[in-house]
């Protein structure tokens, strides 16, 4: 074979097509779209994390010059829904607009539409809320303890996976193997909730068309997913909607939630006018979903020669007040919670827990970032306790091609060892000849 690349186009660093537009500000984003008679919409949000709604008074808001209309839960055709209903996830639980009860600080209770953004802000601030505050729960383990304030409408603070209170993986017999192991090493690891912090805030513009359809300019990461969810919430046939987008100023998973489009579309249908609804930075930071702050407990059974014979993981994924994409994230987390290592006995419980916190949802690395953080700290904890080289501990246990994963799939594309060898070389780390001889295609442990 010649050294020349066998391809003409791929494998080469062609300049990103929009790069110059992004750098010079000429790229068109949602915020750049404008229509005559366009109105602005802002949310009226709960100032407390858990409360019964006794009343909402719009009388002062309505007197703000430029006020057009308001929306409440009564205006939303299917007000209680769950975003993953499109892939069969149940039950419906998130309120598009809160009625009767708010479950997190910042939950929208009403929307205000006005002629200008300033008037919308002013009118939203003048809506009077009569709330009866309720005891709230913020900690995932406290939420699962008896007597905790209940967040959901079905009486427990966890999502049910086919009859189980958590997503589980069982491979071999981890408790029995731990009993037999020379020692047990445990760790508790706590992630933080972080914000997607896209440069472009989440937003959309919904424009009623002459033929009765509505065009929605949106920065969603998933055009049809957002369209279909909007149609479900508004109970309109999907063919009545047209979603346009494709150029997004950063997503990181936050723009897979469908939050702004249904309300803007509803307001457009109600008023017959184009409606713009774009999050402020404050809303991005404190109201939009975050990464789940998983709390992860790992219990490993280990023999004195450094062999990990069992791994038990209990992880609490903090969904916040509504689960959004978290039931999916927990399953992805469970699949990856033993790490890229071959351990003969694995037991994993991943709990999707409801609290009175801002909902968490999809974020870059969803379920895996959290697992990798805890597992790689645990691997170092083991290496330190047993005085084993952390490279050796990992490479000895690294999964090989042909190994079965705890979720019972045979590995066919493991390259962890080769990747580690390349990183060691780049960083100038001297590894032993035994380690350098390892391969993902060979289980053989050098003598």
């Amino acid at each position: 074979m010649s050294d020349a690349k066998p391809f003409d186009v791929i494998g080469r660093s062609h300049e990103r097509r929009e790069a110059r537009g992004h750098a010079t500000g000429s790229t068109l984003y949602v915020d750049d779209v404008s229509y005559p008679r366009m109105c602005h919409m802002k949310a009226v949000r709960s100032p407390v994390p858990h409360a019964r709604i006794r009343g909402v008074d719009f009388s002062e808001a309505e007197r703000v010059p430029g006020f057009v209309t308001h929306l409440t839960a009564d205006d939303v055709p299917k007000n209680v829904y769950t975003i993953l209903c499109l892939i069969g996830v149940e039950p419906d639980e998130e309120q598009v607009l809160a009625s009767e009860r708010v479950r997190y600080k910042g939950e929208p209770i009403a929307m205000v539409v006005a002629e200008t953004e300033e008037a919308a802000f002013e009118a939203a601030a003048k809506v009077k809320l009569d709330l009866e505050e309720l005891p709230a729960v913020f900690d995932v383990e406290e939420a699962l303890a008896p007597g905790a304030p209940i967040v959901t409408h079905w009486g427990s603070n966890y999502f049910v996976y086919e009859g189980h209170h958590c997503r589980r993986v069982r491979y071999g017999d981890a408790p029995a193997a731990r009993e037999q192991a020379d020692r047990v090493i445990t760790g508790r690891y706590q992630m933080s909730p972080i914000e997607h912090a896209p440069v472009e805030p989440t937003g959309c513009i919904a424009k009623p068309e002459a033929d009765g359809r509505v065009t929605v300019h949106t920065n969603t990461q998933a055009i049809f997913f957002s369209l279909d969810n909007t149609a479900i919430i508004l109970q309109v046939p999907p063919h009545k909607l047209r979603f346009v987008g494709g150029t997004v100023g950063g997503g990181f998973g936050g723009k897979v939630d469908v939050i702004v489009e249904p309300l803007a579309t509803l307001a457009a249908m109600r008023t017959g006018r184009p409606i713009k609804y774009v999050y402020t930075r404050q809303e991005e930071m404190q109201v939009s979903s975050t990464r789940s702050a998983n709390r992860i407990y790992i219990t490993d059974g280990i023999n004195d020669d450094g062999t990990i014979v069992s791994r038990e993981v209990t992880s609490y994924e903090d969904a916040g007040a509504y689960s959004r994409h978290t039931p999916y994230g927990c399953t992805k987390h469970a699949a990856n919670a033993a790490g890229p290592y071959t351990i003969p006995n694995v037991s994993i419980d991943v709990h999707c827990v409801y609290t009175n916190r801002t909902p968490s949802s999809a974020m870059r690395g969803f379920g895996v970032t959290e697992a990798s953080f805890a597992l790689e700290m645990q691997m170092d904890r083991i290496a330190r306790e047993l005085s084993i080289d952390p490279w050796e501990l990992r490479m000895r246990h690294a999964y090989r091609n042909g190994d079965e994963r705890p979720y019972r799939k045979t590995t066919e594309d493991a390259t962890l060892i080769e990747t580690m060898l390349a990183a060691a070389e780049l960083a100038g780390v001297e590894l032993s000849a035994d380690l350098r001889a390892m391969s993902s295609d060979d289980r053989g442990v050098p003598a």
Partner: protein
Amino acid sequence: MSTLRGRGIAAVNYPTGMNLGGDPSQALIHSTPTGAFMITLSSTDLGQGLRTVMAQIGAEALGVPMETVHIDTADSDTGPHCMGTFASRATHRVGNAIMAAAKEAKEALMDVAADELEAAPEDLETDGEGNIRVVGVPERSISVTDVALAAHFKHGRTLSGRGMYTKQKSEVDPETGAMDPDSTEAHACTVAEVEVDTETGRVRVVSLRSAYEVGRALNPALVQGQITGGAWMGMSHALYETTAPYYPAIDHGPEDFTHYLMPGAAELPEIESTILEMPSVNGPFGMKGVGEMTANSPIPAIANAITDAIGVQITELPITPEKVLRALEDSDSQEAA
């Protein structure tokens, strides 16, 4: 009081594609009368360069110059279905859909070219520069533009193709967790070096040296962009960011970038990386999804480097100066006792 130095590593895997599958993406391709190829999608470009990579895949698969391939996305009235850009899926799923659409379009292109050149389609090849020629007889050649004109005005044929890619949905066994959660696995390993100021508790990341195994780097500069951005995000996650500084309490939540801290240019460490290419079985041209995982290995690598430096493991993110000082205080008082 002193500056302590430490080194830490982390090795990670990352699954490509929506967990459990069941996430279709579709691509339609047609040529203009003069032989440009339009690839119509409903996928979103998040700034990672999706349009560029999709044009590369389309051009490679069609055998035509990249500047003649255009990406038209995302309008639900004209674009075919795409599940979306997330889960490190777009290049894998949409790329595979384009490969399938390009195969059909190229067959039509070669059929018409064969008629025009009075040769058998299987004897023809594209030269990647906008021409189709008879293998071994370069003077018997026709431009793609002339083929497209002939297709439109003489043969009444479309040069078009349809492609769809769906990984069959896997169910999870609720008892054992048996499932098929990935299409392929990418890998990363990061070596982090840090300096910890024991007086202020401040952690300075000195360097992040990583290897990323990505199957195939379809556009190395864009892969590098993901890597550098991801390393920065991972560092930020490890040391700076939280929407709830006293998690799980909801007080003191930052509301703007002056309170929600992220590392700036001055805090950026030396970032060096190696890209390994070990082609996957099912990604277009062997690629694996790299979008998400680039943020993952730096987080525990930095945390482990801090442990190496101060001798205490801090297991709660972000590892702020306050947490470092408290950990040092605790270990001092333990030693004193």
